[in-house]
């Protein structure tokens, strides 16, 4: 049987980084022990980001230079999906403009949803059932204010493509254990997790279940623990991965940094985030072991191949970590996460109901950012329309679909609007002119106020457009962000 495994990787961490010191400063009066977690920073979503938007960005990163027509399925792992009943992976698939001949799957309800998703995606590919599978793992964490979790957790997403050709890390073995060890839970009607004692979680959970699963996987692969070059175990409990490694005989220098200082634990995404991070600097022949813990443990063992050398540059975790804006304002973090009820004034009262008929009819445009190109004069236009917008053409019924999400552009005009209601005032918006031709008046997000002006180069990003909190709906659209220096955007 042909080898199967990972064929590409990508990641997305939001730009904002909550400074832990700011959170501790706000909350230490209630819980002095928080200071123990007060160093460094954690990734936090902008108000217009969630698990779905981050998954899209991670997938776009992974799919750079890849053939999208080979994709047979999109899987999304997360415990913080915006919809309990409306397929979230389907939104991602539409945003990636993948068409209808596709399998989609949401994987949820466990902190090991990411690794479970990975085992499952690899099984799918091994069975020849789907060509390439795009697996996204994404988490927009929600913690009660003033808790250690708020400091320890982070927001982020990873995407892996799994397949049988061009494999950069081939699968050697997996082992999964199902153990109803309830270290924490979040009931259906609740916003926040409920955690039990850390010492018990460490002693009876991590330290017993993970080694059992790892040993079993190593046995299956016929590999000694000392052969592992990278050991990835997300864990917020200090030195637990190192302790497990030592007891198993895995080299200490193989234990992966859990990115606590710079990112925080991204929940169901984190095992894959760490795996992606490892792949970014992995050498052919290296053995990578990734474990996901949550009511049991998934372990996957990979061997990096020569093909990794020909994979083009990606943003990945490294690129995402480098792209950061410190958030010193704890209150703003609370507001972006709807943890404080800000009085945004009467303009915020406007009804944001989405007509689902309109959403459906225009899903290619709205979710996929697909415009039109006139087959007579070649003019690219958004939206696609019956009559060509070129004043020298005007041809009727001549436009074909033209995917525009990956077309870069530049700022023609802009403003910072302090009057309109915004969750993050002032609202930046303006006219973007695309390199392909075509233009659109769009929202800008994640604006770097120091450098943003007429002529700034931008790319499009998938974001929340409006939150309909009356009805529990979100609608998405594309916004423009400044293009970063360096590879992968």
């Amino acid at each position, binding site marked *: 049987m042909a080898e199967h495994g990972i064929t590409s990787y990508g990641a997305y961490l939001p730009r904002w980084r909550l400074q832990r010191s700011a959170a501790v400063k706000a909350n230490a009066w209630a819980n002095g022990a928080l200071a123990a977690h007060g160093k460094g920073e954690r990734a936090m979503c902008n108000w217009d980001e969630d698990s779905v938007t981050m998954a899209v960005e991670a997938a776009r990163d992974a799919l750079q230079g890849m053939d999208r027509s080979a994709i047979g399925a999109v899987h999304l792992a997360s415990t913080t999906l915006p919809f309990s009943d409306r397929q979230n992976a389907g939104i991602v698939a539409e945003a990636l403009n993948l068409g209808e001949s596709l399998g989609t799957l949401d994987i949820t309800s466990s902190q090991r949803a990411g690794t479970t998703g990975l085992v499952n995606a690899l099984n799918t590919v091994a069975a020849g059932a789907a060509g390439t599978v795009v697996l996204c793992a994404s988490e927009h964490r929600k913690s009660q204010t003033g808790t250690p979790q708020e400091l320890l957790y982070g927001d982020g997403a990873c995407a892996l493509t799994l397949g049988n050709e061009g494999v950069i890390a081939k699968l050697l073995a997996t082992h999964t254990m199902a153990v109803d060890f309830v270290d924490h839970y979040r009931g259906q009607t609740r916003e926040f997790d409920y955690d039990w004692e850390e010492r018990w979680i460490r002693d009876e959970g991590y330290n017993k279940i993970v080694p059992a699963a790892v040993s079993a996987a190593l046995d299956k692969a016929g590999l000694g623990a000392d052969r592992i070059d990278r050991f990835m175990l997300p864990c917020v409990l200090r030195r637990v991965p190192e302790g497990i490694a030592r007891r198993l005989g895995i080299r200490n220098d193989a234990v992966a940094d859990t990115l606590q200082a710079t990112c925080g634990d991204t929940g169901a995404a984190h095992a894959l985030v760490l795996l992606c991070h490892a792949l970014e600097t992995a050498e052919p022949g290296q053995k990578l072991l990734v474990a996901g813990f949550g009511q049991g443990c998934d372990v996957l063992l990979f061997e990096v191949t020569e093909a990794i050398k020909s994979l083009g540059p990606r943003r990945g975790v490294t690129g995402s970590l480098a792209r950061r804006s410190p958030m010193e304002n704890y209150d703003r973090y609370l507001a972006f996460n709807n943890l404080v009820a800000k009085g945004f004034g*009467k303009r915020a009262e406007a009804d944001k109901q989405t007509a689902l008929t309109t959403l459906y009819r225009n899903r290619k445009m*709205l979710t996929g950012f697909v415009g039109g190109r006139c087959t007579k004069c070649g003019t690219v236009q958004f939206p696609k329309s019956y009559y060509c917008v070129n004043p020298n053409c005007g041809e009727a019924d001549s436009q074909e679909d033209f995917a525009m999400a990956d077309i870069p552009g530049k700022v023609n005009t802009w*403003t910072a609007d302090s009057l309109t209601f915004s969750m993050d005032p*002032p609202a930046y918006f303006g*006219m973007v002119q695309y390199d392909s031709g075509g233009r659109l008046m769009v929202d800008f997000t994640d604006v770097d106020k120091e450098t943003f002006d007429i002529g700034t180069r931008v790319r499009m990003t998938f974001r929340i457009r409006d939150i309909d909190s009356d009805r529990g709906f979100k609608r998405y659209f594309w916004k423009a962000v400044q293009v970063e220096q360096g590879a992968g955007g």
Partner: protein
Amino acid sequence: MASGIKDKVAILGMGCSKFGERWDKEAQDLMVEAFTEALGDAGIEKDQIQAAWLATAIDSVNVGPSGVPLAVALRLPYIPVTRVENYCASGTEAFRGAVYAVASGACDIALALGCEKLKDTGYGGLPQRGRGVTNDMYWPNLSAPGMFAQLAAGYRGAHDVDKDELKRAMAHISVKSHANGAKNPKAHLQKAVTMEQVLNAPMVSEPIGLFDCCGVSDGAAAAIVTTPEIAKSLGKSQLITVKAMQLSVSKGTEASHNSWDGSYVKTTRIASKKAYEEAGIKNPRAELSMTEVHDCFSITELVTMEDLGLSDEGGAVKDVLDGAFDANGKVPCQIDGGLKCFGHPIGASGLRMLYEMYLQLAHRAGERQLPNPRLGLTHNLGGHPHMNVSSVSIIGAYE
């Protein structure tokens, strides 16, 4: 073969309510206020009005849709009453309906009335409202100042203007309008302001500051029109007639095609060119006595000077700062104080502009009177710089 509107319709009478925060008045009260003055000025009975056009823009705060609210408020005798809306150009749109009805011979005397009651919104600025079911799903999060601020960025970029210089030219416009409005008992704001006040005002949508914005207010204005022959037969002399009425509406080029650089309003250029042709004006800078333009924001007025051909391409900043459009300038702009001092009760504004041009031409403008005006242009713009409707009308002495 169409021959244009020039001199086919005369203004029989006009009226204008006090504009402002008319907390104690319903929209219907404002309609009556403007109509009463117009009727008295026309010197006719209500029953002589044979058709009416009502301009109101925002249904949700105001009288609601249809022409019925006007017919009921004024007890119009079962005549045709049409409600028109074309964004902020609605007022002129009502005038257009009445004028065309008379010019076509369909009726002898017609009424145009625009009214807007915005101060029931509950907060400053225009009400936050839906823009259309599909538009709401992809138009950016915008406000009116935000949209017109795009024009400032576009102008700055196209003509390489220093940010501070553009801000000063914008401020000069507001200072000039306030100086004019201080002489107008019907204006909402009747106080002069200084350059410092304008430049230091809080930012609303960069670079548009609070004093670069017209206010939001309540008001109504009305015009009664007829043919010059009927006007004379009713005893009127020194008639004021419509010389041109043009409207140009965007077709999506500016919004979706890269041929427009964002620094001017395409529709105003088209409408004004056609209006000058229709009126027989060959040299607007020499022949126009005065203008009332759509100064929703100071940048709009600045750009409009070029769009109307009153300034050269890229020359408006200098012309403005040189005082070319001040009260004692070459072609005074907003001699009544403009939207800046009246505020912008949307349906009323186009007619309020015509009201001042009419008073000036009739030598009834009191303290604001210009010496011997012959032709007045009104420019009434609705929508956004990249997608809009621009209305250019010219009225003048009937020769």
